[in-house]
């Protein structure tokens, strides 16, 4: 009986105008979006390889350790999955002066967005009159006079609507994937297809939530026109408002100190105040050395030449001056340490508070299935917050190897020529380690997607249970 109901639902949808409209819309806009995103991803790849070539050409001519770190800063290469999902990769880059205002004004359309907004709307359009429509037509009574349980009818309706929704979506997706497959520049690997399968599974559950919601609302309402209104009301709140409000709500509940103020304070601590403290400490220490070594009397007032002369002339003075110099250096190191620790406290506090706020915002926004699905897709496709952290770890590893390289290289330079200015001399950096971005393994990404997926599945189950309850209580006349 269930099979019969599902088939009937699918057939009646296939003949309906709304199915046709949804199908045409998806068939036009999914491939169009994929074409535009694919072209953009290829453009980004070109841009990236141009930039890397530029960096290499600069390194071959102007590399020197004073400014090398600024040139070799790691950057995220465009990944093949950008042809479908964008996640956080279209950030406006507010830290650069030439920030890009366009993505702020009009956020990108990608697969996530199409599923999350367009398809959820289509799910409501297909299911809003599942029960109320049959009641209005009078066919619900007839169906239930047969030997069929209400649960079966409801389940058949949900399955049928979901299938009628997924069919056009998968067709449109297939058309989009042909675009990706035909593009030689996008080399999709097995892990990309795995991630896509995960995202589609998430999309299925996500759409299940909305089909269930449509059926639930339609069994509570007597008329279909009231049912679509209530469905849209819930949809607007859940999809368009809750996720957008959540970071603002989190920032009101868990405020963070001003990043600009903290940044400036850190600068003051590690620059101006550090200099003051260093001067004070080194003066104290040097005075102590002078007290212990009377031969140094008056050394503070001596010029550089006189000091060098005295060192050459008098071995006792030379030995004492060596202690004097070391103490002075130690004082500056101490000043750096003290001020650095103060700055670290500020930075650590800021970081902790920002993390707490982000966590709260994530939690609040995941009340909406839209946000859960967005995070699921972003993390699976390596374009989300998880990738930001992954990239941070890779960069940290790169900087460690870079520092090691710089230490070795400068030692070599000193060994070859003791008087060389290691900072401002051109060096050959062909043997320098380069930053290599590797995508996170698929298994780890799936693990990260478990929480949003379970949330979606739980919500879907809750909606189904509620619709069964509502339908059982419904008056079918």
């Amino acid at each position: 009986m269930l099979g019969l109901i599902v088939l009937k639902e699918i057939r009646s949808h296939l003949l309906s105008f709304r199915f046709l409209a949804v199908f045409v819309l998806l068939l036009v806009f999914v491939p169009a979006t994929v074409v535009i995103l694919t072209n953009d991803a290829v453009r980004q790849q070109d841009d990236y390889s141009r930039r890397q070539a530029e960096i290499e050409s600069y390194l071959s001519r102007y590399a020197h350790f004073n400014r090398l770190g600024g040139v070799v800063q790691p950057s995220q290469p465009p990944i093949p999955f950008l042809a479908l999902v964008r996640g956080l990769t279209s950030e406006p880059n507010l830290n650069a002066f030439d920030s890009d205002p366009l993505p702020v004004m009009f956020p990108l359309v990608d697969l996530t967005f199409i599923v999350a907004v367009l398809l959820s709307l289509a799910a409501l359009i297909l299911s809003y009159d599942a029960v109320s429509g049959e009641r209005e037509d009078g066919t619900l009574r007839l169906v239930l006079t047969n030997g069929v349980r209400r649960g079966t009818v409801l389940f058949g309706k949900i399955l049928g609507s979901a299938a009628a929704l997924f069919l056009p979506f998968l067709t449109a997706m297939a058309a989009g994937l042909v675009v990706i497959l035909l593009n030689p520049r996008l080399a999709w690997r097995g892990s990309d297809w795995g991630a896509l399968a995960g995202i589609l599974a998430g999309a299925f559950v996500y759409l299940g939530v909305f089909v269930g919601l449509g059926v639930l609302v339609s069994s509570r309402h007597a008329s279909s026109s009231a049912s679509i209104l209530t469905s849209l009301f819930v949809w607007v709140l859940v999809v368009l408002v809750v996720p957008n409000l959540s970071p603002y709500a989190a920032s009101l509940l868990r405020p963070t100190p001003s990043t600009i103020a903290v940044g400036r304070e850190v600068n003051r601590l590690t620059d101006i105040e550090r200099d003051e403290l260093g001067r004070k400490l080194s003066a104290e220490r040097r005075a102590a050395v002078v007290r212990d070594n009377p031969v140094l009397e008056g050394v503070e007032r001596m010029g550089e030449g006189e000091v060098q002369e005295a060192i050459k002339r008098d071995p006792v003075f030379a030995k004492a001056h060596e202690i004097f110099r070391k103490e002075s250096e130690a004082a500056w190191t101490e000043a750096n340490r003290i001020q650095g620790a103060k700055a670290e406290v500020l930075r650590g506090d800021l970081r902790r508070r920002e993390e707490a706020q982000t966590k709260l915002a994530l939690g609040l926004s995941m009340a909406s299935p839209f946000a859960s699905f967005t995070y699921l897709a972003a993390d699976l496709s390596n374009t989300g917050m998880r990738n930001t952290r992954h990239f941070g770890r890779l960069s940290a590893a790169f900087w460690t190897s870079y520092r090691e390289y710089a230490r070795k290289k400068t030692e070599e330079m000193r060994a070859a020529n003791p008087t060389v200015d290691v900072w401002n001399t051109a060096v050959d950096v062909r043997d320098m380690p380069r930053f290599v971005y590797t995508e996170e393994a698929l298994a780890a990404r799936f693990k990260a997607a478990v929480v949003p997926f379970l949330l979606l599945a739980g919500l879907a189950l809750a909606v189904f249970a509620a619709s069964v309850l509502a339908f059982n209580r419904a008056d079918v006349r």
Partner: protein
Amino acid sequence: MFRTIVRKEIAANLLSYKFFIVILLASVLVATSLFVMGRDYRNRLADYQLIRPEPGRPIAVLPPNPLSVMAKGLEDAMTRSFEVEVIGIEARTGRSSANAVFAFFPAPDFVYIVKVVLSLVALLFGFDLVCREREAGTLKLILSNPVSRATLLAGKWTGNFLSLAVPFLLVTGVGVALFALVPGPRWTGPMLGRLALILGASLAYIALFLSLGLCVSALARRSSTALVILLLVWALLVFILPNLGTLAARQAVDVPSVKAMSEKRQQIWTREVLLSISERGTWAARIAALNDEFDRLEEDYRLKFDRLVRLSKKINRVSPAAAFVYAATEIAGTGIGEESRLKEEVIRYKNRALPDLTRDRTSAAAPAFAYRCRTVGEVLAAGGLFDLAWLVVFGVVFFGASYAAILRTDVR
């Protein structure tokens, strides 16, 4: 007769479930949005008190714009702190930069609520105006009276527009008044003028969607068909077209990425440091040369970027939602044009402050940064008026189309 129809429409709306739920939604959202964005504004204002530069320091920071409560736009980019340093401008970002959830979803400001939710609400008011009456058989009865189809259509439109616009204006008015009561921002006369213009643009935008709904409802035979068409058209106009348009424009204009620009600066700087050692110029001369090169780079970038913005504006205006966003953000002073002007002003400021800075790094007596927002007149002349007119034209065209459709309708 016209007034009778208007009164009938308003009365029918007032009694309906649709009116109840739609007005509830719109009021809750407008109120929540004004509250949340207002609190956000006050927090940013408190931050500004901390970060405003002391006199003599070469830092350019704008105070937060009170109208960003209505239209957030590029406020985050505009209220960064631009600190002039010997090798260029360092931009520091405010508090919302660390929380990545902000980057996932657009800001729920008034413009967003109007653009997304109120357009949907207007469609829900309009989708069954003609076809429901035909389904119910009352259309015949009305038209058997001495009333022209044009009067009927105009009456329906007016009645629904009033029952939509009046609650909307009431809620917004109360929200803005509450926001203005708390200490902090001063609502000056010109600011209120801008606010009124944004409200006017919102009304034109809502009217447009009401006309679109009316048009489809006159064309479609069944109201459920009309609803399906309208929902899909709405998703297309509001979400898909403007957002795809920007990306399509990017493929037509070759603009270097932000990342490429910052890397280029690092490279030039690196080269100059090395050359200054081998070639023994004075440091100040080197800095001047470096700065000139940066400015040339920047100018080239700006030229290309302006071309990109112009093209994407042209493409995006296919969708009235984009025209509305452009108009509202520019009027509020948080739009793309204003941000671009601010950047130019910051570069000019840097060039004024730089000679002092190279001479003496510690006690630079930099002139204070001053920026004057464009006046409403300038904004309107620079494209705002075009966008507003575009909205009105869209509305009139849709209304005309619905008149043509109802003339051809078989009312039986």
